[in-house]
Structures are given as C-alpha cells and as structure tokens.
C-alpha cells in the first residue's frame, strides 16, 4: 500500500469513529437546549477529565509546544503552571459555579453573568465578545492543521480539501451530538493524544539518539543555552515568565468553552475527581516534549517553521505508518479544541444573545427549550460555514489571536469575584470587561508594555483594579448578594 493511501486510510478511520460518536451521542440526546449545551449535567468523571483536558489543548500540544522548545529551550515549561492549576480551578471555582448552575439553570458564561448581576446587557455583551474571538480560532485551527494533513497523505490532500475535511467533520459530530458528542469525541481524541504525544517523542529520541538521556547529554554539549533562561533568543525573561503564565492561566480558566465544562458534571464528586485527573493528565502529556524540541534542534537545525518540528521528525525518523497514526494525535488535538469552540460559539449566540434579546416573550417551557435546541443546532451549521469561509480566505489572524485569550481573561474578575465578595456590582463587572479590553488593545497595538511583559497581563491588572474601584463606588446589587448568601449557605 502506498504512503498516500495508508495516510488517507488512517484519516478515514479517524473520521468514521468521530462521526459514529456523534451518531451515538444523538441517540442519548434529550433534544432540549440544556442537554445540548451542558449534557443536562450528566457527565461522569472520565468523560469530564478528557473533555476538560482536550479542550485546553489545541494544536499547541502537538506542534506549538515542541516548536517553542525548538526555539527557546526548556524555559518553555513555564507553561506547566497552566497544566497543574486548571484542575484545581475546576474544583475550587467549578464547584461553586456548578452549584449555582444546578439551582439557577445557567447554561453558559453569559447566562451565569446575566443571572448573577441581573443584567441581560452583560449576558449579550459577553456572548457577543465570545463569538467574535472564537470563530477565527476555529479557522486558525483548521489552517494550522493543513500541514499535518498534507504530511499524512504525502501531499494528496490540498489546503482547501483539508479545510473541508476538518471543519466538515467537526460540524457533523457537533450538530448530531451537541456537547455530548463533543465530550465523547474529546475522550476518544484525548486518549489518542495521551498515547501519541509521549510515545511519538520517546520513539524519536530512541531512533535518533538511542534514548532520552543520551539525547539530553548530547544536547547539553551542543546547545547549552537551551537548558536555562532566557534561552538562545533571550526571549524568556523573568518579567515575560510571570506575565505570560498569569495571563494564560487566568484566561484559560474563564474561557467560554472551559466554563461550560464547570456546568457539565453529574455531581460535585465528579467535579472534584475530574479536577484531580485533569491536573495529572495535563502535566503528564508533555513529559517528553523538551526532548522533541532539543533533539529536533540537533537533527533539523534549519527548519523554517519551528512548529513543524514534531511532524517533521516523525516523518523523517519513524516508520511512515507509525508517523501518520501519531500525527492523527495532532488532528485530535486541534479537532477537540475547535469542536468545543464551535459548540460554545453557537451556544453563546443562542443562550446569551438570542434568548436574552427575546426577554419579553421568554418562557421556561419544554417548547421553548426545544426551539432553542433547534436554533443552537442550526447555528452550528452557520458558524461552521463561516469558519470555513474565514479559513479559506487565508487571512492572518495573529493580532486577533494575540488579544483573544487576554480579552477573555479580562472577564475573570466579573466571573470569579462575586463567588467570594458580595460587594461586586453590575457596573463594576461591565466596566471591568470594557476597561480591561481597552487596555489589552492599547498595550497590544499602541503602547509598548513595560519590559518584556505581555499586553494581556496589563489588561487583567486593569480589569481587577476597575472592578474593585467601580464596585466600591456603586450601590451593592441584591442579585449578587443573594448568590453570595446562597453559596455561603451551601459551603459554609
């Protein structure tokens, strides 16, 4: 069998499994919006671990992380902080959000904020901002993966065909199975990644250098600067280190896709153990990533795109069939994130924007729930097509992507603080989001940040300061007080 055909076959098997998951998830569907958006809080520990972890990872896990080591050395592992802390956040923050979700029926981040602050405007604002940031992300995942698909099939799949394959497959299983389809597919994809990423790294190290330890020994002789800060490009300085991990950790904790998973567990027991499992999974998966980056720098020093190092090494230094099966791990990593994003965007448009704008006619009935369910499903198709169009335009989204995580991070005070402080106000929440976004854009595009810090860091600092100042200056909110008192009653 030729390389092209065997690569296509692996992709085909992968696609069939993903669609089968969507079809099976549809059979379990209760055909209402709550089930479609949060599985009606029926997700167990194992599925929650994998859907939470896989949503955290994009193509970064397979391409971005080894590429970063390839460029800047072991300093990349500051990212380890956002592998340990998300699981803890899932338990510490997630348990409070889950309890409120159970009591108040919250279905999304905007729905939660609108309810806590008694403000439909806040809900619509958060939903709209989320959609604006998410769709280019889906397109970017698809674009980034075109290289992998081309490598897997020996160039048989063109850029355009890769886009259709990637987005088309996601749309099918998300449309069919809703978040249950996404979560089950995440589990399948998460398992694939858990095996493929460490195993791929280990085999490469073994084939090229005789093992991980000989690889590091040779690397320490040839590329000493990669073994400490600030790395060969002087990129990872102390101020960059602190500002970067804080921005990413806080931003990821309040991503709309992650927030939905706080609501999905079937009990607090599930939330707790999924948190523990997530910390272990996310920390483990990168165990051989430094070896791939350092080994890659010695074996292929002149690579024009650093992020291509892992697939490049797999193709060049492992048997082709092993390489394509492992690279399907990259497809899994990208697909799990993009499908969660597509689903979250459609859910936000339905729950946070459409439903809130219908406030005069809003009814909490089965008929209304079914109507929202159908709107949500068809928005998956609409947003899928939009993402495809954006991807095919081959636009550069680097600026938007740079501010998207930081932009979401500015919502952190509005989301987290009312769980612990009844002085939080609606005015504080709205001004902190808008003010934080303003400072992110200001520092990203118009003013240089102090030292080597990232723009998002200043956006987060600003949003917290604005939140406290405005909340102190404005009248306390009865809705926030009720939420706070309820949590106090439940958790003591």
């Amino acid at each position, binding site marked *: 069998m030729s390389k092209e055909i065997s690569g296509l076959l692996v992709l085909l098997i992968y696609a069939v499994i993903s669609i089968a998951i969507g079809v099976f998830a549809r059979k379990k569907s209760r055909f209402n919006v709550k089930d479609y958006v949060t599985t009606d809080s029926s997700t167990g520990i194992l599925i929650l671990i994998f859907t939470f972890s896989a949503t955290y990872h994009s193509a970064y896990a397979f391409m971005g992380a080894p590429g970063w080591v390839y460029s800047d050395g*072991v*300093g990349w*592992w*500051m990212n*380890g*902080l956002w*592998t*340990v*802390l998300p*699981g*803890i956040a899932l*338990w510490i923050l997630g*348990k409070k959000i889950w*309890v409120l979700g*159970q*009591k*108040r029926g919250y279905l999304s981040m905007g729905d939660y904020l609108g309810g806590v602050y008694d403000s439909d405007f806040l809900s619509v604002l958060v939903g709209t901002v989320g959609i604006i940031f998410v769709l280019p992300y889906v397109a970017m995942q698809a674009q980034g993966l075109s290289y992998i698909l081309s490598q897997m099939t020996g160039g048989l799949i063109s850029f355009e065909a890769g886009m259709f394959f990637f987005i088309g497959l996601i749309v099918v299983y998300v449309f069919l199975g809703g978040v249950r389809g996404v979560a089950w597919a995440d589990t399948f994809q998460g398992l694939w990644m858990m095996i493929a990423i460490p195993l791929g790294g280990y085999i490469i190290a073994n084939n090229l250098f005789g093992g*991980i*330890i000989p690889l*590091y*020994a040779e690397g*320490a002789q040839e590329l*000493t600067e990669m*073994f*400490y*800060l600030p790395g060969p490009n002087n990129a990872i300085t*102390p101020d960059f*280190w*602190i500002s970067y991990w804080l921005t990413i950790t806080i931003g990821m904790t309040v991503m709309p896709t992650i927030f939905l998973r706080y609501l999905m567990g079937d*009990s*607090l*027991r599930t*939330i*707790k*153990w999924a*948190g*523990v499992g997530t*910390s*272990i999974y996310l*920390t483990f998966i990168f*165990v051989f990533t*430094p070896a791939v980056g*350092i080994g890659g720098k010695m074996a292929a020093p002149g690579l024009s795109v650093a992020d291509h190092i892992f697939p490049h090494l797999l193709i060049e230094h492992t048997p082709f069939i092993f390489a394509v099966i492992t690279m399907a791990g990259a497809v899994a990593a990208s697909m799990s994130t993009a499908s969660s994003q597509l689903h979250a965007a459609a859910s936000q448009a339905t729950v946070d924007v459409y439903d809130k704008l219908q406030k005069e006619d809003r009814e909490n009935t089965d008929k209304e729930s079914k109507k929202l369910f159908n709107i949500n499903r068809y928005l998956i198709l609409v947003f899928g097509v939009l993402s495809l169009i954006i991807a095919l335009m081959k636009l550069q989204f680097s600026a938007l992507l740079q501010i998207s995580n930081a932009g979401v991070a500015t919502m952190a005070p509005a989301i987290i603080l009312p769980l612990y402080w009844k002085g939080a106000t609606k005015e504080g929440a709205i001004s902190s989001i808008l003010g934080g976004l303003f400072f992110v854009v200001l520092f990203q595009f118009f003013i240089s940040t102090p030292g080597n810090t990232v723009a998002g860091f200043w956006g987060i600092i600003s949003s917290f300061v604005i939140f406290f100042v405005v909340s102190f200056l404005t009248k306390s909110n*009865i809705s926030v007080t*009720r939420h706070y*008192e*309820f949590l106090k*009653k*439940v*958790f003591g």
Partner: protein
Amino acid sequence: MTKGEKLFWTVIIAMLLAVNPPILNLINEYSSNNTLTLGFPTFWLWLEFWYTLGAGAFLIAAFKIEKWREEENIQIEEGPFIGEEEKDE
C-alpha cells in the same frame, strides 16, 4: 479553612514561589553551570518536581480533606432561590 486545606494551600503557594522569580533565578543560575541532573535538564527537572508535587498534593487532598469529602455529597434541590420565596408568596 480546615487544617488539611491550609496544608494543601501551603504546598500550592510553595510551588508557585519555587517556580517563579526570584527563587527561579537562583535555580537558573545553578542550571547554567550544571545543565543536567540525573541525566535530565536541571531546570526542567526542578519545574517538573514542583508541578508533580502540586498535582500530587491535590490528589492526596482530594482523598484526605474531610470537608471536601462532605462537599462532594452536596445535592442541590430545584426550587425558589434566596429572596424569591417571599416574592412567590
């Protein structure tokens, strides 16, 4: 906060301090002269140790902290929210 929770948060704060400047600067300086420890990059090994300790502390805390064990059994009844009872009546 219970004694177990205090211990857990102490480990997490210790982890955060150990993997950030200024403590990290000292490890970095040591790593520049001693790139490898037990065959692995010293700097990476330091970080990996603390992350594993953090994840391990979370695992042990999940088993041991009585308050968390009680919390995992909390059931939420559907019904009126605080303040809504009066309104409904």
